[in-house]
């Protein structure tokens, strides 16, 4: 980035504030650990939860990053796409629970739910791209951003209008492998209570991310996506159907969000039409933290944010109610001190 003279003073002030803040956070955390007010098991269980939550953030963050990598715009309605999949997934899993399928073949029921959720999210995202983004690809930057906000509101209140305002609760699922209940079980190992669901969620997230990575790096579609991200016009000249690649990108991100939604609902249970907002913002934070437009960055950012959110309230002795402030704080701090994120370099510099 070029240097701008008038900004130097403010920048150094900002840097000073930031360094002080960071030092304070480290000191406080170190003090808490040294003082030993919490046992190691507390940290361990927080870490496990944080990794699961982080996996969800990472999956949603990939949707932001994929779209940003290609269109250089923030898909503001991505949180709603996450919500839509989860919401419609609820109806499937609820129907399975009523018909007894969930009790007899929980694996099949979960797969059905996940497929429906992913299909819903993909439909929503493709519709969104077609109606709200495609006609505005060459418009001033503010314009698609505003349609995105509009679309986000529209989706949220459509779900409210269609399905009502009552909170839906995902039914309990028991998926036994051997003697362990993978979803609803709680097991004590010494003083540590372990819920296998967190491992399952984290594992699934890793599998999906690995799948995405292979898709991007090894397949023809992935190659086309990388080409379009590099340069749309040149890609078009090489015979790539840019529109199709963009739709595929939206669909891919949405499918991950839909899958993430079902996993999220397996342990958070409650589904409402507003549930997409906070995870959406946090996933965006994760994407920025890792370096927006950078796929491994989104994965890393999600995991880091999940762990930070799970462990910092105790480390810093913060009020748990202020947990959400933490994520926003991280977002602001990252944007101020390292707008390119942890791994992001190439893309952000080009278009920042």
């Amino acid at each position, binding site marked *: 980035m070029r240097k701008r003279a008038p900004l130097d003073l403010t920048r150094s002030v900002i840097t000073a504030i930031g360094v002080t803040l960071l030092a304070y956070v480290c000191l406080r955390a170190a003090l808490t650990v040294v003082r030993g007010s919490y046992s190691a098991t507390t940290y361990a269980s927080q870490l496990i939860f944080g990794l699961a939550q982080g996996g969800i953030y990472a999956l949603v963050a990939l949707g932001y990053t994929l779209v940003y990598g290609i269109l250089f715009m923030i898909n503001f309605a991505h949180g709603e796409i996450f919500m839509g999949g989860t919401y419609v997934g609820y109806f499937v899993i609820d129907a399975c629970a009523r018909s007894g399928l969930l009790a007899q073949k929980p694996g099949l029921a979960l797969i059905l739910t996940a497929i429906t959720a992913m299909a819903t999210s993909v439909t929503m995202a493709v519709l969104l791209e077609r109606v709200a983004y495609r006609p505005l690809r060459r418009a001033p930057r503010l314009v698609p951003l505003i*349609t995105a906000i509009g679309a986000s509101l529209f989706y949220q*209140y459509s779900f409210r*209008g269609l399905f009502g305002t009552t909170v839906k609760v995902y039914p309990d699922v028991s998926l036994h492998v051997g003697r362990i209940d993978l979803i609803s079980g709680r097991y004590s190992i010494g003083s540590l209570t372990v819920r296998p669901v967190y491992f399952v969620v984290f594992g699934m997230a890793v599998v999906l991310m690995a799948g995405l990575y292979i898709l991007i790096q090894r397949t023809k579609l992935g190659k086309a996506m990388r080409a379009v991200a590099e340069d749309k016009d040149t890609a078009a000249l090489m015979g790539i159907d840019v529109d199709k690649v963009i739709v595929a990108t939206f669909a891919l991100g949405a499918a991950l969000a839909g899958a993430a939604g079902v996993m999220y609902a397996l342990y958070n249970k409650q589904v409402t039409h507003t549930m997409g907002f906070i995870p959406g913002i946090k996933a965006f934070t994760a994407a920025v933290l890792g370096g927006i437009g950078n796929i491994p960055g989104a994965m890393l950012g999600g995991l880091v944010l999940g762990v930070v959110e799970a462990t910092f309230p105790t480390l810093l002795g913060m009020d748990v109610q202020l947990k959400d402030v933490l994520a926003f704080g991280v977002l*602001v701090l990252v944007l101020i001190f390292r707008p390119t994120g942890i791994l992001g370099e190439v893309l952000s510099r080009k278009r920042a």
Partner: protein
Amino acid sequence: MYRLMNRSHSHEGIRQACARGALVGLVLTFVALIGVFTAFATIYVVRGVLSLSQVLLALGPLLAGRAQKAGQRLSWREALAGGLSGVVAGTFVGLLALAVASVNMRAVLVNATPQLVRTLTFGLPLGLGVISLVGFGGLLGAAGAGWVHVPSRLRFSVALGLGTVVVLGALRQNGLAPVLAAVVLALVSGGAWLYKRQWQELQTSYELFRRRNESLLAVLRWPLALVFLLAVPYVLGTYGTSVLNLVGLYVLMGLGLNIVVGYAGLLDLGYVAFFTIGAYVTGLLTSPRSSLGVGLSFWAAWPAAMLAAMVAGVLLGIPVLRMRGDYLAIVTLGFGEIIRILVLSDSFKPILGGAQGIIEIPGPRLGGFQFVKPQHFYYLILLGCLLAVIVSRRLADSRVGRAWLAIREDEDVAEATGINIVKYKLLAFALGASFSGIGGAIFASWLHAIFPNSFTLLVSINILSLVIVGGLGSIPGVIMGALVLVGLPEVLRAFAEYRMLAFGALLVIMMLARPEGIWPAKRVREELRRG
């Protein structure tokens, strides 16, 4: 060969007509399932004859039939294609009615009620209702196709007459009596038909009159407007004035956001934060029961509220100086949420009251006069708005305004021409925030109590919507936007339920069709048309 081509051409036509009908049918199905028809079924446009939901239902096939390429004259083919579109749209709605009537879907779709079926089938038996839906769809579709070929003078007058009847009927309790509706239709349409031609002359003569008496009008314009504004609360009564007060507060805040978004081009989604700060500072300073307990008067508190908001604006502004549009949007969004969470949290409960908020905030007092009624607050809000309008106008035309414009257009170029970006961006944030702070101060003293739940993200979205729908950078646009987006849902209570949904759709539609807003600033319009 020719015949073959012709046939494939007509196949194309049929397919397009069906597709159009299907699209409209899907939209109508969606509208039905979110409950609009059910909610509007009891709002009569013409008492006992025509409800608002029927008007909406009829509008679908009419539009489906209309939206096709028209030839020189109405041909059979066009009418048939229009009719086909209408039939398809009607079939969709009919199938929906059948499905809702035969399968109980209420567990999933809350609005799939028997009432919906009754509304969709006009209260007829199911079979007959569905058949009439399809039939009416066809007729209306054909009528829509024919509509383009009606002479423009007649078209204009009939549309105006029908529109007037619908608006008047919907606003009036129980709608217009049939006779009255007929009279209104006849009068408005007839009048418009007779005077369509004279309208042009009327305009030119007004133009002439205006030019001849320019100096007189210039002197009279502002006093006349002022007298009108001062007299409004006496005409509207208590309820109307309360609605107007709300509109006024939104105008005040909209003008503030307009400086940030419209002039300087900085998309701020956390604008409600400054409103919150203004309200809480006022509450803390004036309420005797607050943690400060100083119990100052409103007049001492509002400058403090404004200042606090300004400081917050600058504090938010400094870190985001370098950020691009979309990052800025999310960071400001985060800022708004942080303020709300902090205000709501238990950690700050001893100071800010947590979920209980701050109560017993006294109203303003002027000598021995106590502001109590909405009418009293109306004048306070009016004063604030006038101030905001004057400040906005003077700034927009000044050196500062031009600097903002340059920054909005291109930051790098602006900086290269010697504009101090830091100074002007922070100025925009501070000024925008200060309007909102004043709005918060008035809000707190008007309601006598503030709770964190009044300060959600939706307020920011509301303000942003009205600024954008009105027209970015346009002062009359902001006022229009507030009247339409804030005033109308308050008056049309049944609509309030769908307000946010409509805002969302409106934001998308405006950006697609008319990005400059309904009352655009001249410069923005040119720029968006070009870009």
